[in-house]
């Protein structure tokens, strides 16, 4: 949040200058059409391939979350060359928003796993797909080719593009934990090794000491690939940490071809930043953000184990099922409001986010997520079905609510589009389904029946003040 505030200050300063700042930011986006700096799709893709499009046809696909198979349309590609990552010789790709793959045409594809088994999808819904015609690569307007990137892309020949992809992809990176297991309330230390795979020297911004922490972020995931933290990425520079001493954060190092360098970083994660029991953490992904003559992000994953002595507290946190995670929040609960949210007896609004397991697949390392795929579920039937899954207690006593009908829950979940990974029910007034007329503190939890075990949200505490009626 403070960073958002800083950003807000900067925006305000820009506005004070007559709106020019917005213009500066908007120029590459709105005025000229492109959306992303040219290297970003190549870095965010799990795999980058040169492939020839084959037939586009409907197939029956199995959602990775175990739902019912459903008909989808895919294009089959024959992979001619894997430029980054790994992938089979033939791949099926969702068409996405891409205007359509032409059979017989070669493409450079930036691919990520789709929500269906054995099916890939083009990054940014296919908009990053590059067509090859007469040995030249046709980049869609989606790419913003900054002046400093043009020399790498050269004449846009296939050879130049393949070389650029390798270069954009950056240094090879590995990461390992500094201990076998960490306590959840001690800093998590990792050794990060970067190697120059490029046949020429590569300069990286890579300061030593605490300043290195400004260039790396961390993701912790459980066995199902669900994020264990409240943020998508945790940074040593975030949160309640004093800023590191003013040492140079932009110290550079030049790696000869094949040369490696190892730096250590410690992430101090506060208890409040865990959304799941820390003991469910199975893997860590460290992301290095580089600038210098190579710019962008590189990722590496390693197994990691956390111990948590605060067992009762950990029991209050979310516990996802293999396929679904459920997040519960109060809409007014932010900033200066109190940790116990307070509500009127007639108005206990909460929001629910249903997250599918495929969003953070265990095999997926890179950080791309599309927030635009949040989909609101506001119809009454969905709300009532979900309301029946709430457990509300006051002073250890259950508060009566709707009867749970698992079939309707299954129907609700099956009906959700696997390609919209984060359906949101933004506003459920629990006071419509439960009796909050007694003042006091209530504990609220959502328990979603799923195959393989229920998905539990964290416990939400709601305090209902004494009513005003009759007070005077």
């Amino acid at each position, binding site marked *: 949040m403070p960073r958002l505030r800083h950003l807000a200050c900067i925006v305000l300063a820009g506005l004070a200058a*007559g*709106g020019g700042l917005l*213009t500066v930011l908007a120029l590459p986006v709105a005025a000229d059409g492109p959306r992303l700096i040219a290297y970003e799709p190549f870095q965010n893709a799990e795999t980058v391939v040169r492939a020839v499009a084959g037939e586009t046809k409907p197939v029956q696909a199995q959602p990775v979350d175990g739902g019912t198979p459903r008909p989808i349309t895919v294009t089959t590609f024959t992979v001619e060359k894997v430029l980054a990552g790994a992938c089979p010789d033939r791949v099926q790709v969702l068409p996405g928003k891409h205007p359509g793959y032409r059979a017989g045409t070669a493409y450079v594809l930036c691919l990520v796993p789709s929500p269906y088994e054995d099916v890939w999808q083009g990054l940014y819904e296919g908009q990053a797909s590059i067509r090859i015609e007469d040995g030249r690569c046709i980049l869609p307007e989606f790419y913003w080719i900054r002046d400093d990137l043009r020399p790498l892309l050269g004449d846009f020949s296939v050879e130049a593009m393949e070389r650029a992809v390798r270069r954009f992809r950056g240094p090879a990176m590995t990461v390992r934990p500094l201990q076998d297991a960490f306590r959840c*309330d001690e800093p998590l230390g990792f050794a990060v090794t970067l190697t120059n795979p490029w046949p020429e020297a590569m300069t990286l911004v890579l300061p030593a000491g605490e300043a290195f922490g400004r260039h790396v972020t961390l993701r912790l995931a459980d066995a199902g690939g669900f994020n264990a933290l409240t*943020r998508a990425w945790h940074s040593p520079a975030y949160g309640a940490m004093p800023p590191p001493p003013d040492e140079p954060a932009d110290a550079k190092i030049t790696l000869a071809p094949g040369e490696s360098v190892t730096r250590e970083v410690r992430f101090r994660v506060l208890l*409040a930043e865990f*959304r799941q029991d820390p003991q469910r953490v199975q893997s860590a992904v460290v992301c290095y953000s580089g600038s210098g003559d190579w710019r962008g992000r590189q990722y590496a994953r390693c197994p990691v184990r956390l111990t948590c*002595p605060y067992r009762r507290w950990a029991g209050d946190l979310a516990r996802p099922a293999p396929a679904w995670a459920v997040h519960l929040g109060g809409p007014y609960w932010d900033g200066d409001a109190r940790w116990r949210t307070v509500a*009127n007896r007639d108005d206990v609004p909460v929001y629910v986010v249903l997250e599918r397991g495929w969003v953070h697949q265990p095999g997926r390392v890179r950080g791309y997520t599309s927030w635009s795929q949040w989909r609101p579920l506001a119809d009454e039937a969905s709300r009532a079905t979900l309301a029946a899954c709430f457990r509300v207690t006051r002073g250890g006593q259950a508060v009566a609510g709707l009867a749970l009908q698992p079939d309707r829950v299954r129907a609700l979940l099956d009906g959700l589009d696997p390609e919209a990974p984060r359906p949101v029910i933004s506003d459920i007034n629990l006071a419509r389904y439960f009796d909050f007329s007694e*003042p006091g503190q209530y504990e609220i939890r959502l328990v979603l029946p799923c195959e393989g075990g229920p998905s539990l949200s964290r416990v939400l505490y709601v305090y209902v003040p004494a009513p005003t009626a009759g007070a005077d």
Partner: protein
Amino acid sequence: MRAHVRRVLGLAVLLAVAAGPVRGMVSVSDFPHVVQHADVIVRAKVIRWDEVPWPEASDEALFRKKEGLKPVARVQVLEVRKVLAGQCAERIVMEPFWRDSLQPGQEAYLCLRRSPRLPGAYEAMNLGLLALPVLEDGRVAVPKRVHYPDGAERLLEPDSVETAENVEAALRYYRGPDMDVRPLKDAFAVDEPLALDVTLTNRTSRPMALALDRGRALRIRFGLGLWDGQGRSVLISQTLVTRELMMDDSEFEPLRETVRLDVGESVRRTVEFPLPPAQFAFSPERARTATLTYRSRAQEGEWYGGQFAECPVRLRCADGAWMDTLAQPTDGLAVTLHVYSVWGPARSTVGTPRDVWMEAMFARPEPGPILRSRMTGGFSYSPLDVPPAARAALAARLDVRLGDRVLARPALAPGGLETLLAPVRPGQDARVQHWNLAETVDFSEPGLYRVRLVVPDGDAAARSNEVLVHIPRAEGDAPKEAP
């Protein structure tokens, strides 16, 4: 921290400077917005240049002193010929435009707001880029940078010359309908909806279509602010976001309605706001004024923009124990305490014996007119550069309790605090960040702690809201007997 502030400010300045060269290439903010957000719209003539001192502790004064310059601001004195909207004196002081300032003798239609830097002065909105100079023959030059958002009527063509009558009619139209608001009751219970009667009257010279939806959907057209006697927001945000805004917009599609007002015609509606208790920063009973913001920008042909009005309001709340846990400001100072930077679905205030991180925010009310300018919704804050000594002085003001036991009691001797709070300027928030209370208070025992900051302010003490911090029990910790 100082370096951090420098970096942020430096970046802001750089961006502002970088914005300069591209200014001419593009439009600036939408013209109707500027008209609606101005505190006052006048036709005025520049009388002379003048110099006024910058406030003593302001950044500008400090910077100029550091550079060996006279700590004064160069301003223009204006004679107001006609007030088209708002209220102002016959002679006003205005900070000059960023570039292409008006010169003495020149006259223009100006959208002005109170200067955030120079008390008592005005500044032209959008740095004067949308000033409408009056030419020698009494006609008015419309700048080429005038831009309209989609859906707004284009009454003044960019880069044209218009009659003064047309310009004034356009300014009045964009300014919108007159809005009058009054509470439906003398006092509302905090757990019942706050009901306000709103009357919108078309006093412009042309018919006007307003978006005024039916039923609950009407509420999404309005934003509510609640303010105490010193002009501080009683809510945690300046505008209450109603739950409807968080819902799928399609729910309200069938309820959309447009009301057409002829010249002089009025329409009246009742708007009800449920008041979520979690939205209160201070006791609801401190509320004295309600502000209502109206927005109309739904469909083609409707008047595009926002209007603002205020009325007195009183709230009652029976739960004294709950109100007591909210912040209690003095007349001169408000203090807010919250956990630092943790958001999202996890429970925010859980700590460990060595990590209880907080932020403290200090706010002073602005003297004189209440800070509610028509520019609602923005905020600014500056991080307080807190040396260790001042942090210790602040830590001495902590009130920390575990159950009935007092672990830290505020030492109210004011020494050291004046220095700390001196930079907190009226109308601006200042924060102490990265504050680990575990460095000064013993949180080693598991349990629920209640933490509060009590800061002396003259003869009184500003009390922050109470923050509850849960220190979970680690396996192996033996339960301790209550004393």
